């Protein structure tokens, strides 16, 4: 188990390093001079040169990369000069909103997805199953920005249950401002939960131990809840962890639609203005989240299922 863990961690480090290299060169090679973008056409050449020097942009690209790597390894993520604050400070200001949104979306995905999956799996190809499958296809096909706008239109503008955009902290503020965005993010994810959980449930429900449980006279609720569901959840959790990347990607759009001051809107601003160090830090953060989520899923699975960890040896 320890050997497996070390192996996986080493892989994760390699992936993150690759990500760092890729984002560094991608953002630097895209045309667009951040200094000129920020300082504008009025700045004197001296002022432009001064800022370029401060940001090390006047050095060869490989030197810049070396400087950047050594700084990152020391825990310095640089200065977000289009915002005028250290990257670390900017990230910590924006992290909370995104973390809250993603967690809330995940909870919604599970709360909506699990009951629907069970409902659908109970009578495969029944009316409920077919309607749910049709519904999930429909929801999954909707782009996040459109779904978000529609929810804002219906529940914000027409029904006035929620504000159409904005963000507030505190428990009440959290539910008031994050519910619609979390539904926008969580619904497509719920469809993933429904689909995987339904098919796992179907295969589990045909196994002999379920038959045995039924023959012992257990109620259907107990058979599904206690035996079938537990054995089917593993796949779903793995799929969900793989979808963390999707979730982070979609959160950029959703934050933009609902004007949530999180990491997603920050990334958009940073890319638009070519704030190199901020883009890099955000890509690294998102990458780390994805890598950690899949690592966690692998480890849990390996822990629960010896076949997985033995296969690596």
């Amino acid at each position, binding site marked *: 188990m320890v050997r497996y863990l070390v192996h996986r961690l080493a892989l994760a480090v390699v992936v993150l390093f690759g990500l760092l290299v890729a984002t560094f060169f991608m953002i630097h090679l*895209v*045309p*667009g*001079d951040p200094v*000129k*973008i*920020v*300082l*504008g*056409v*009025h*700045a*004197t*050449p*001296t*002022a432009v040169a*001064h800022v370029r020097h401060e940001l090390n942009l006047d050095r060869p690209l490989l030197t810049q990369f070396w400087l950047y790597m050594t700084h990152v390894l020391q825990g310095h993520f640089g200065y977000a*000069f*289009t*915002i*005028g*604050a250290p990257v670390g400070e900017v990230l910590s*200001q*924006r992290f909370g909103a995104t973390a809250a949104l993603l967690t809330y979306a995940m909870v919604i995905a599970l709360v909506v997805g699990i009951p629907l999956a069970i*409902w659908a799996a109970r*009578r495969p190809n029944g*009316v*409920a199953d077919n*309607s*749910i499958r*049709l*519904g999930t296809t*429909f*929801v999954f096909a909707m782009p996040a920005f459109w779904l978000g*706008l*529609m929810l*804002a*239109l*219906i529940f*914000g*503008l027409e029904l*006035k249950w929620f*504000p*159409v*955009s*904005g963000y*507030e902290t505190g428990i009440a*503020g959290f539910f*008031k401002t994050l519910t619609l965005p979390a539904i926008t993010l969580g619904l497509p994810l719920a469809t993933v939960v429904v689909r995987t959980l339904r098919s796992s449930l179907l295969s589990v429900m045909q196994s002999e131990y379920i038959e045995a449980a039924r023959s012992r006279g257990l109620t259907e609720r107990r058979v599904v809840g206690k035996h079938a569901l537990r054995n089917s959840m593993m796949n779903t959790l793995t799929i969900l962890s793989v979808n963390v990347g999707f979730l982070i990607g979609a959160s950029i759009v959703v934050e*933009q*639609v*609902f*004007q949530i*001051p999180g990491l997603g*809107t920050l990334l*958009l*601003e940073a890319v*638009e*203005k*070519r704030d190199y160090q901020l883009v890099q830090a955000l890509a690294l953060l998102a990458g780390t989240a994805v890598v950690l989520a899949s690592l966690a899923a692998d480890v849990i699975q390996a822990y629960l299922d010896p076949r997985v960890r033995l296969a690596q040896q």
Partner: protein
Amino acid sequence: MHKTSASIAAGVICVLLLAACGGGGGSSKKASLKGSAGASTSAACQGAPVRGGNLVYERQAAAETLNPLQIINGNGDIFAYNQIYSGLVRSDPNGGSRLEPSLAQRWTVSPDGKTYTFTLRPNLKFSNGQPVTAEDVAWSLNNFGNPKVNANMASVAVGYDKATVLNPTTVQVKLKQPVAAFLYNISIWPAFILPKDLVEKQGSAFYKHPVGTGPFMVKEYVKGSHLTMVRNPYYWEKGKPYLDSIRYNFATDSNSRILALRSGAAQIMDGLPFSQIASIQANKNLRVQSAKVPLFMGLWLNHKNVKEFKDINVRRAIQYALNRQQMKQAIFHGLGQIPNSVLMGFDMDAGPNRVKPYPYDVAKAKQLMAASKYPKGFSVTLQYPSGYDFYTQMGLLLQQELDAIGIKVKLQETDPATGTSNFLAMKYDMTFPFASFTSDVTVPDEYADFVGNAANGLNGFFSGWKDPAINKEIDTFTTTLSNSERVKQWAKIQGDLLSQTPVVNVMNLPFVNAHSATTCGTAIDALGSDHLEDTWFAGGKGGAAATTAATETTTG
């Protein structure tokens, strides 16, 4: 059980479909606003202004810094500065290029135009109650004039020498040369007056809770989210501002801004897309406001990269080939203004009788192409910023219209940052260089110099064009003091530039905002800036308390 589940699932789908139909529609009525000053007065605003209320303003660009000498986000920063700080003089709040006294009560100019003497209003105070001293004024102006401090806007401090304190209410400014636009240059943010002692003592921390002489003062500033400001009790205009507070919500997405306005959570929004004007006008609780500002669709031609653009017949042919009337209706919903200048429209511009605009005349354009060195036509690439439907539409129309005279246009959509960089590096054939292309001052001096002054290092503002004769005219214009002389000179320069067509002004555009019908006193000055000190709510009520207003739903 089965039936219920099926009908719930079906119900969900129906709701979503209905929403899709209901949301996508909108009014098909054509937008039309009478006059450029913006038909926005509603009956509710006829009476005397009422004090009180909290305004929520959905803004496209975020304020990224409150330090007026380190602007980094264009209008996002400027519109915040304009509420918190003020300068010695200001643009007429109701539009037009007239300047009026602000912190200075009056001023005199020496006959050689190199010495300005300003007399401050008596008993001026900053928003923390401390008096505004002549030292504060001189120090702030000297920062404006110091290219090391005012690095980002150094070009507006052209000709500045130094300011000295003559007595506690008088400050004298010396210039190295006469600068016709000097008062205009100090009417904008880099020359706003700050408290010397506080800034020196607190350094960059000052700008987290800045103190100024504007109508409002900062209460809460959350970067990337909102900026809440409350009434400055020491503001110099008696009885103003009327509003208790204003809150800028930063919302880059235009749909979000529109929804916030329509739901009543906000009372004003900026950056209304042209395509949405009709649907906002159809709502009786809302008003669309358009204001004449120096904003235009500047089509830049690269004289260095494209040899064909060196031929004046080709440049003029392009002017004649543009069907501006069609563009105005089809793309700008009637709100564009057909230009008679190659630069953005200025108050000082001569009218269409004195300087005639190019009419749409394909036959004439073809004649000019035939007379040029390139009668068989040529191919160019047009770059334009992505993310703006009107640029995409404009690109397609231009492609079609120039094709008719033998110029094959390849369209290249670039993200705004790349487009601007390519422009500054002159890596383009034809380009719309900025998503929003405006002048910083209300007089033509800045852009005339940018484009026409070969000595400024800007290469004909990155067009690669120069013309010694027009250059000389511009030099004289920017240093002439008499306004009546300048008006005459400008008409000549405007005509000469239009005749030479170094670049093309495709269309003058207004600033288009929308606000609730009960929000009054929303006039915009000639730079597009609101004067929220004049804004008030009919009935005295607007949004909810500003701190939570973004999420409250009150009907407008």
